[in-house]
């Protein structure tokens, strides 16, 4: 069991070491990174089964008892996030085998991907605030490496903005660590849950909570902290955007959920209202930003922002149903958003551009791709019976039960604008006639086709399956939400006894 908890970090990091040190041939490299992802997925699934059956699991690294060493903890939320990370890692790695050129491959592409996966998994499983900070740094540097790899000017432009703005997140996060430590003398999350209520100056605790919220809010791309995302996500190769789109912002969302259910719960009404306002502005500005774009990945990038708002809104409402909705939304969104980016990659491959004006005709030319676009696009827009429909339904219901009609109005209105954006892509890329003269691009070969379409089909199948059989995932999300709402099991698993 203890090995299982750290395996999702060890497997990708070990794979990365092999990839970066051995610098193997193309074939071996592909096999290695696929193997690493499959192993990660296997470990994640085992962890998921274990946690779903036996509740929160914890281990103390080096056997140094909590809160003195670093604790690793898997609850339902963490285990699910690790699992979906593995799924996205596998999908993106396979897609990248067809997309990433040899130059980028030789300079460590696959290794950076694995390190990013390791960092993301570490963030989802650690039970220590400072250790979380370390995984944030790992993610930041690995994502920086992936963003700049290739060195095209547009990439560098995006990467500079990405890093400069994310450094603020890093700084605030680190300052927050210091402040928390100064207040409580501990950085173990479970320990903080126990000790923070004893701090006399609760107003200060709320202020520190806001410091963390800004740090995580930058990562999650909340309003008004999201500038880095639309500035950078359309610049690297599509596989990289898809990986980022699926995972990076969600680490921020995860951290917000973790901190505001486990650690900063003392001033819930106030912080909830703050988060709700931020979430609402995020949803609206994001979706309007998307409406103003005319390039596929830029549209999708702004939609990440907008959708993050939905997840944080679930956290802000904070009822068990709303939290379950937030968890469900996050898991669904990771699959759907990564897939949309992958589809944009095939569009680029087939039309030579992601610019709406320079694409067209794929409805006739690539009917399979058209169908595969509709699944994640309409899921994102909330059409039934796809995963996104249920995610929105839960949040709308939660907002209704919380007597918050303005939240309902925002959820619904943004949903309609999401439909607008998705149909815009559909009409321009697929329906309209291709522009003349058409770019002369080589047709897809069999192997390339399989590598590009395989991941898209797989992720679309997940979206459809969740849509048609929502009960298993909802029940899981519901149980995860109950763990979050009542962290006694979490604390007991880490500190060894029920407080």
């Amino acid at each position, binding site marked *: 069991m203890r090995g299982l908890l750290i395996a999702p970090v060890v497997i990708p990091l070990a794979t990365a070491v092999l990839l970066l040190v051995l610098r193997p041939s193309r074939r071996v490299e592909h096999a290695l990174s696929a193997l690493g992802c499959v192993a990660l997925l296997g470990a994640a699934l085992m962890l998921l089964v274990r946690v779903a059956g036996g509740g929160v699991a914890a281990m103390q690294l080096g056997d140094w008892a909590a809160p003195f060493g*670093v604790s690793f903890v898997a609850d339902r939320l963490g285990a699910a996030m690790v699992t979906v990370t593995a799924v996205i890692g596998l999908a993106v790695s396979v897609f990248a085998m067809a997309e990433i050129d040899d130059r980028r491959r030789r300079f460590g592409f696959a290794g950076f991907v694995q390190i990013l996966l390791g960092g993301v998994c570490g963030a989802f499983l650690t039970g220590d605030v400072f250790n979380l900070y370390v995984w944030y740094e790992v993610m930041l540097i690995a994502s920086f490496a992936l963003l700049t790899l290739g060195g095209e000017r*547009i990439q560098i432009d995006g990467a500079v903005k990405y890093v400069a703005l994310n450094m603020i997140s890093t700084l605030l996060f680190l300052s927050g660590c210091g402040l928390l430590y100064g207040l409580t003398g501990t950085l173990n999350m479970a320990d903080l849950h126990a000790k923070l209520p004893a701090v006399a100056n609760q107003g200060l605790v709320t202020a*520190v909570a806001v410091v963390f919220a800004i740090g995580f809010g930058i990562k999650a791309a909340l309003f008004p902290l999201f500038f880095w995302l639309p500035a950078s996500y359309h610049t690297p190769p599509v596989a990289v955007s898809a990986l980022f789109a699926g995972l990076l912002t969600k680490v921020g969302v995860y951290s917000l959920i973790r901190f505001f259910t486990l650690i900063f719960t003392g001033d819930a009404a106030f912080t909830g209202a703050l988060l709700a306002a931020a979430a609402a502005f995020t949803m609206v500005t994001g979706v309007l930003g998307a409406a103003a774009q005319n390039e596929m990945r830029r549209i999708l990038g702004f939609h990440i922002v907008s959708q993050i708002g939905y997840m944080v809104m679930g956290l802000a409402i904070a009822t068990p149903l709303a939290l379950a909705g937030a968890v469900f939304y996050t898991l669904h969104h990771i699959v759907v958003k990564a897939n949309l980016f992958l589809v944009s990659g095939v569009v680029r491959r087939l039309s030579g551009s992601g610019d709406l004006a320079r694409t067209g005709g794929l409805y006739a030319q690539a009917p399979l791709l058209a169908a595969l676009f509709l699944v994640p696009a309409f899921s994102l827009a909330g059409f039934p019976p796809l995963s996104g429909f249920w995610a929105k339904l839960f949040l709308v219901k939660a907002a209704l039960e919380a007597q918050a009609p303005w939240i309902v109005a925002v959820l619904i209105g943004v949903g309609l604008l999401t439909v607008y954006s998705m149909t815009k892509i559909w009409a321009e890329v697929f329906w309209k006639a291709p522009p003349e003269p058409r770019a002369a691009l080589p047709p897809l070969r069999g192997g390339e086709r399989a590598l590009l379409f395989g991941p898209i089909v797989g992720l679309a199948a997940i979206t459809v399956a969740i849509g048609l059989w*929502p009960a298993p995932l909802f029940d899981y999300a519901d149980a995860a939400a109950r763990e979050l709402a009542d962290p006694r099991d979490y604390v007991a698993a880490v500190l060894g006894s029920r407080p």
Partner: protein
Amino acid sequence: MAADHAGAASSPGARALTAIGIAIALGFAGALASLVPAVAGGAAPSVAVPWLPALGVALAFRVDGLSLLFALLISGIGALVLLYAHRYLRGHPHAARLQLFLTLFMLSMLGLVLADDAVVLFVFWELTTVTSYLLIGFDSESAKSRRAALQAMLVTGSGGLALLVGLLILGGVTGTLRISEWIAAGSVAGQVAYTAVFALVVLAAFTKSAQFPFHFWLPGAMAAPTPVSAYLHSATMVKAGVYLLMRMHPVLGGTELWFWTLTVAGSATALWASIVALRQTDLKLALAYSTVTALGFLVLFVGAEIGIAITAAVTFLIVHAFYKSALFLVVGIVDHATGTREAQRLGGLARTMPTTAAAAGLAALSMAGFPPLLGFIGKELKYEAALAIVSQPLVLATLLVVANALTFAVAAVVAFRPFWRGEPETPRMPHEAPRRMRAGPLLLAAAGFAFGVYPELVGRYLVEPAVAAIRATPMEVDLKLWHGVNVPLAMSVATALLGLAIYAAHERVRAVLARAVSALPLTGERAFDASLDALRSFAAFQTRILQGGSLRRYLFATWLVLPAAVGSVLVLRGGLAWPASPSPVPVYAWPIVLLVAAGSIAPIVTTSRLASIAALGLVGAGVSLLYLLFGAPDVAMTQLLVETLTVVIVAVVLLRLPRFSGRDHPGSAGRARDAALAIAAGTTVSALLLAVLASPLDPSLSDWFAANALPAGFGRNVVNVVIVDFRALDTLGEITVVTVAACAAYALLKLRPGASSEQEGA
């Protein structure tokens, strides 16, 4: 989109999908037909499988009189339309897709009318929106089709979202999502939430069923191939809103609000659309507007409570489904055979297209309300109901007579004049349609005749159970062709005379109408376009402000959040605190503090990058000295090392960069702004630190580290033991960071592509 791929054979895929679609349609029709006697006897077969038990959502379906009537129309007409469409689009490269979408649409529609669970109903409601989007945009390379599809999607989609909210509120109020349980529990008019639920459900129904002022999407949707219009936009989807109103009648009906909203909206829609219908010269558009008229009638009568009004609505629903889909299919044939749908160019087609002409004539007679067709019975019932539902029926009765007379004239324009008057001036030599295309309209038109002659069949087995379901009480319905000489009959005669007069003058009326309508300042469509334009320009404006592409502004905005949010929270939540006995700054530390302060001010003042970086190095060095003074020599060493390296590396990099140009570097106002922000952020962080210092430090962790470093960690340097043992994972992570940084830097230096000129822009 008169598909002319004559000669081309249909693809095997299209053939297979057609066969499958028709088989499904006939299977449903047969199964449903076998339920007719039982349902007429009052039974309501149902089935329910849990879907999302945690929220009480079940895949529940139930066949009562209302569902059965709709489902029979959907599957029966569906089979005929599929057969027709197969021939209509023969050889079209996307013919198979059309059949697939039509079949999916049919299934969605069936699910919608058979659903007994509110969420399931909504699921199918949205599926009809999605499939109709794909069908309206079928001719996808035409910008007009794409626009029409988007319009329909957004208008009915917003209604759909309203429906979801309305149904969820109702579910919350009643504690169940099962529609039959809602109906059994009766009206919720007394609930606080009633008005909200009513408004949301009615919005959904009005958008879907094209009520004024949301009606404009329906004529636009005529961009779809004709079989699609015949199916979706006359017989089925546009009636989904009416279905919803009928379904919710026992739950939401019977109030003043319900009555007046539906009556006013329904009559306004009927009258307005019947006027605009006459204006059209495109036969298909004329039919589309006359469909809006019919939908207005239906909504008007569903607004009432009394049995005769509901009977009128149900009967007219059937009447309209038959004649309108028949006429659409006829127009499709005419279009196919002659190459035009323009009323003025068509004439005398009965000679070359006798069967089509017969179908058109029968359907038009039903539309105009002549006996012995079912349309006559429908019209008589409408008049009877109009006289009964309000105490002062004069206005309503007049309105109905006028709207019906206009419909009469439209029927003549669409289905009489092209066949029996004048000579054709068509692009193509008219010829009779192939058998498969004639079957649908002929059967549908004939049904209007047969049921007119034997109305008791429809009355007893279809209308009566449906009326009972809508009113949630059994009621006997006896449809008769002859009601004796009474007021409705007199109104019918008046309608016919007025209709003839309008037809005789329709060319002149049309010209007047065209001018009048185009002079209108605001229509639903223009409002829609204006709001879409407004949305686009606001989105563009907002994005220019927020995401302008300048890193300086991004940094400023992001940093601004720190003092704005944290600072105000500190004040608002009373978090400010001053350490009880702040240890005084020792005298020898003051110069260092001043050095640090000077180092932080310098970058604001200077315009030289090198000076800035040197000044920041000063800050770092000063802080290291402070560490040293306060007893942390190892941390001071590390800090000094890092600072020195940073300054050296950055300075080397800066030397290679061009000097600041005026564009990159802010003016004095900008710098003042930056300085203010820096001071605000610094003050906020200082306030936080002071407040933290004001609370007691819990030393249990550091005590434990100090106590255990040697015995458990075998090291005398506590910091080292923490780094390499107690918290070794952090160190592993940091090593990873450094390694990746090195690899990334190496790649950046070595991997140089051809420069691309793209920038973020936005």
